[in-house]
């Protein structure tokens, strides 16, 4: 990947070169690429993901505003 270089003014110096943004211009050709849910195959994997990834509704092992480690 080729990095973009931008010139910016800096305190005590006139201009410095810094690395610019690094967004890749590549565009997905295959519409399936973004479909992450197919990575979970079996029903067990899906249930496990719900328990972990959507833990505030479907899991027991979590801390947050409604289940505090240290009460406010």
């Amino acid at each position, binding site marked *: 990947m080729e990095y973009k270089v931008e010139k910016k003014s800096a305190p005590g110096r006139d201009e410095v070169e810094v690395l610019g*943004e*690094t*967004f890749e*211009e590549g*565009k*997905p050709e295959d*519409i399936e690429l*973004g*479909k*992450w*849910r197919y*990575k*979970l195959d079996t*029903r067990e994997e*899906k*249930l496990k*993901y*719900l328990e*972990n*990834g*959507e833990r*505030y*509704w*479907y899991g027991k092992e979590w*801390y*947050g*505003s*409604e289940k*505090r480690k240290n009460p406010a």
Partner: protein
Amino acid sequence: MADKKAKSIDQATIELIEKAAKDNCNIAFDRADEMKPCPIGSVGSCCKNCGMGPCRVPLPRGKEETPEEQMKRRGICGATAETISARNFVRMIAGGSAAHSDHGRGVAELFLAVAKGEASGYEIKDEQKLLQLALEWGIEIGDRSNNEIAIDIGEKALAEFGKQEGELLFISRAPLKRQEIWRREGVVPRGIDREVVEIMHRTHMGVDQDYDNLLKQGTRAALADGWGGSMIATELQDILFGTPSPLLSQVNLGVLKKDEVNIIIHGHEPLLSEMIVAAAQDPQMLEMAKSKGAKGINLAGICCTANEILMRHGVPLAGNFLQQELALVTGAVDAMVVDVQCIFESLPEVAQCYHTKIVTTSYKAKMKGATHIEFEEHDALTSAKEIVKLAIENFPNRGSNIHIPEEKTDLIAGFSHETINYLLGGLFRASYRPLNENIINGRIRGVAGVVGCNNPRAMHDEAHVAMVKELIKNDVLVLQTGCSAMATAKAGLLVPEAAAQYAGAGLAEVCETVGIPPVLHMGACVDNSRILIAATAAVKDGGLGDDISDLPVAGAAPEWMSEKAIAIGQYFVTSGVFTVFGVTWPTTGSKEVTDFLFEGIEEKYGGKWAFEQDPIKAARLMIEHIDKKRAALGIDKARERVLYDMAMRRELDEV
């Protein structure tokens, strides 16, 4: 004829308004010039709920009203301006909630038919979300098949509409504190239909005559939409058609193709459109298109059916609400297929200027001058093929008066709550933690939901784009749905590169790290329910208070026009979100009702309405509110980060 350039910020729209004028084709922009809004109806001061009226109770112009004068400002039955204003407002909520919820009911009916094997061509595509609802609603999973589980889910979902008592099931998804607030205020919806019907009863002549009590029922019906009908529509559509994931597509009328059969899908329910997507790829259909001289079949969408098939199939967006007639004005649309909601009755008339076939598909929404091909859920693919065939056969009838604008812009769509959660933590530990941490550390100042329609009383797309640019410039991450998302997509804000170009340094840094645009397209207008869930996830993750009203968030519909927008606004406000509307405000005929919605309601629900026509000023109001919430959370000042060495750690241990 009025100045065309003042009508839109979008070049494609301007070109086609000019073409419509040349073609002597009357469109909404012309009609808006010819007919000004009724000054009494627009402020909610006209009551036409019985045959003694209509009664008009406008505010006196240019002077402060005395209490005696106010007492005289009544309808024949004695209804005050306050009662009339509140009645009109809650009837708008009833209309909006009914529209979203009847959509949800249609999805639930199809869902149940699919589960029972009675709707060929459909299948359950997202098992994970099916399991999610089963867990949530206490439905046995075990070794049961997806269809067996789906039958239970479908029956439970359908029962939500006719339920008479208790609480809607999705209420339990909200933050616990929010649920307590709703119970305290007595506004937890009992059943979806009941709350809408009760509004119609209460606003009938001579029933509820207390504006506060009317607005309370308005809240209950609005919550039955956001946390009921709309949420059911979103969730069941995800199970049937797939939960959206990020994908690349394009927007604007330049997506139409001169050498292909162009079919526009317009409306809000994706049930038939999903099948039209399949029918358009059928080899037999493609062969037929070629036999008529076309190179292929090109699908594109308008309004929220478009958002639905964009989010799941990448079908390009031809445009938003005010571009529906203009799509026909190109002369290149062979068929426009409509289902329900936001469809101009003028379409068949505009189509007569060209060659387009307008096809209605719902028994609930027929039009004079259109061809009706009814959506049959039990054999939807046959209906879909019939429509595609009609478009193909119409292709040779195109005239020479064709102009397809060049404008089309890339966009990334598909940011469901589930996908945002996944993007922030992956399969290993999906989480809203990175979002909350970046809000706490100030890189992201807050989050705004900018949604809603177009309205020809305001310059097309201008307010959406100006507001969203102002928000992201100030490090506010923007979530969008509906026609608003299409407006900013046309302006190039829905691609990751937009972060570098338009966003503040903090927001741009986060977008670059995660690889997301600064403006996230979350779907159709029923998918505002996704924004509620995203806000709830942020609350539950911790560090930003205990309720949605504690979050540094705000909402807006700068170009709203439909009753659905009022219902959405009311459920956001009463879920704790400060919400700003533009264009017009429908209760200004009553100072008391307006004051309550703009101030008093905050004491009850933690959210309130505001009205501001200037999109930059509206964005500043939102940012001001976000800053107020940051201050209340104690995250308004940057704190110096101290790197602890071992000696400092030991000191800590000793304390």
